[in-house]
């Protein structure tokens, strides 16, 4: 079976780094992996999506790099509105991890649209298995608001099959040396929050 993890958020939140950490950690498991990103204009504060697809066993070949509606096993949402936007990509029985952070999009800032209330409760009442974490607060606790991506990887680690060591190894490889300790702390704060 091919498994699909979707990472959604707002350009600038560090979703790309999160998808690379997850992708690289999976490659080391010896399975086929595809990670798909979009660069350029959407990175400027727009809605961003990255896809990680991988084989459960080394016999599973991943063809498509993208995830469609009803296909994601796990969605990690860095922001509540983005969780709502992409909930339809979750497979039946899939799991959603959401950071409780909210970032107003420009139509809300300019007063042309309203930010929906109680998004997490509404997603939950639709029967979705959703875990909400204040990743921003935990990241600040770890030393930087920018580490909320690694907090969310910590949350993912509490559900997935990979060992903590494997995750930490990837974090060490993917972040600049002077931020490794901070990010390790962020990872464990995320993991222990569940």
């Amino acid at each position: 079976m091919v498994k699909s993890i979707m990472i959604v958020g707002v350009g600038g939140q560090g979703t790309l780094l999160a998808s690379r950490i997850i992708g690289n950690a999976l490659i080391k498991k010896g399975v086929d992996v595809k990670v798909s990103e979009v660069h350029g204009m959407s990175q400027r504060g727009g809605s961003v999506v990255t896809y990680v697809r991988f084989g459960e066993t080394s016999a599973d070949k991943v063809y498509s790099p993208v995830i469609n509606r009803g296909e994601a096993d796990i969605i990690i949402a860095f922001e509540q509105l983005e969780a709502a936007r992409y909930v339809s990509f979750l497979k039946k029985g899939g799991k959603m991890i959401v950071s409780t952070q909210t970032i107003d999009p420009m139509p809300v800032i300019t007063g042309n649209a309203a930010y929906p209330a109680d998004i997490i409760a509404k997603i939950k009442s639709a029967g979705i298995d959703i875990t909400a974490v204040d990743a921003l607060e935990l990241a600040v606790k770890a030393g930087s608001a920018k580490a909320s991506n690694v907090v969310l990887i910590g949350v993912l680690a509490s559900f997935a099959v990979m060992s903590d060591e494997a995750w930490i190894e990837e974090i060490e490889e993917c972040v600049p040396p002077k931020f490794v300790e901070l990010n390790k702390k962020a990872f464990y704060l995320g993991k222990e929050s569940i």
Partner: protein
Amino acid sequence: MLGNEAVARGLYEAGVTVVSSYPGTPSTEITEFSANYDEIYAEWAPNEKVAAEVAFGASVAGGRSFFGMKHVGLNVAADPLYTMSYTGVNGGIVMAVADDPGMHSSQNEQDSRHHAIAAKVPMLEPSDSAECLSFTKTAYELSEQFDTPVIIRLSTRVSHSQSLCELSDRVNIPNKPYIKNVAKYVMMPAMAKGRHVFVEERTNKLREYAETSPLNCTIYNSTKVGVITSGAAYCYAAEALGNTVSYLKLGIVNPLPEKLILDFAAKCDKIYVIEELDGIIEEHCKALGIKVIGKELFGLIGELSQEIIAEKILGKTFDSVNFTEDIPVRPPVMCAGCPHRGVFYCLSINKIRVSGDIGCYTLGASAPLSSVDTTLCMGASVSGLHGMNKADPEGSSKTVAVIGDSTFMHSGITGLVNIAYNQSNSTVIVLDNSITGMTGHQQNPSTGVNLKGDVTAAVNIESLCKAIGIKRVRVVDPYNLKETDLAIFEELAAPEPSVIIARRPCALLKYVKHKPALVINDCKGCKMCLKLGCPAISNKDGKAVIDSVQCVGCGICTEVCRFGCINKADGGVN
């Protein structure tokens, strides 16, 4: 590795020595990764035409060379490419062009295969990173074997997806000897006539090659349904249809084989052609008299996906939960602290018409600034402004062009030469943020640093403008709204061409020091600051609040707040 990184690895392994490109999403990283190899000389050229000509020169001198670009970049490089097809190569020439189906970061959705057909050069299309690497290496062999430039066609999902690759060592290929050959390399009519005959013969040979090349492969699973496909579309088809159908996967998309396709079609009852954008393979099949189903199901617009294919061919529907309320869209916005914001704010409040260009500052078209009136292609802001002012001289006092520093280097200068030469009363604003922003911070000829990170000569934009005949040139700080506003007012009023350089480095550059976040106390609710379209300022129950995570303390909101409510966190004035 990323598809683009795999192309760069292919360049390294193929013994390439010269790489020249202009950045463009989704192609940029090929050249950035190439620069990591000490054995490769890699550079950012001012535009794609220059890059193509650099690669041509390197080839004539005997080295293997490369130039890369996004799809619209190939329009700029088309002039050298179409004649390079005639001259052929000495050292191999490969170029990569990255299409953007779905227009994630582009101004149109053109299909680069048309260029390969029109220029009569072979085009290979990899479907994943492993093929990006191996096809790039094969492309050099084909280039030298058939005496032709070879195009690698990429797309967003191939360029920007990571998948597994097997690496090999570099083959160090000595430069081919330089031999003066006027009949081959000097394309004046007498010689070009001879070379055109060569080009047509070469296409026939390439078509023969395509019949048996391992780049085109067949996978027989079923005699009922056959799928002819290529590139990313193959991945979607294989995902959706698995081993229930047979595949003809075309790695060479120009020229297309005939016998191979006819044989495949003869072995399957029903043939689908699955390709993104235009129906080029489909038309070819139809011309061969094969009944195929393609664009009538999949259309000509946007990206394909396994979902679309499964739905159209298998009638499969997807079960998912939808969020039932309206979800506000989240369009991209100029970053907090973006130096472009100050200029667009001044243009917006003065209701100035704006001839726009390609870059982050295209976002000046979005609400609430809603400032940009036109965006066409690289450099068109400057030339277009001249046209507007010639057609409507009275409008020239309320119309400007805006163009970034990199786009100005790319193709804005020639438009400005035209303004100076043909004298329109035009005001051009160069938004100089000292970097190529949108594509992810590439250096350019005005930044004083090259691709490898070495300090180099920098184009002085003020001197350049003066040298070409613009007498009124002034520099402003776009964080200073008063100064910027005055400059726009005065230059629009001046009865001659003028250039305003709004200079401040991109707020995302590592060397730019951010100030502490600002705070709003005792907000009167006038909403003036919300007109800046700053993502760090939002409206909570009628009062403006600043998000301390996003705010970089640029302070332009303090200039628009009439009540002095926006200040430093310690209470001091910014």
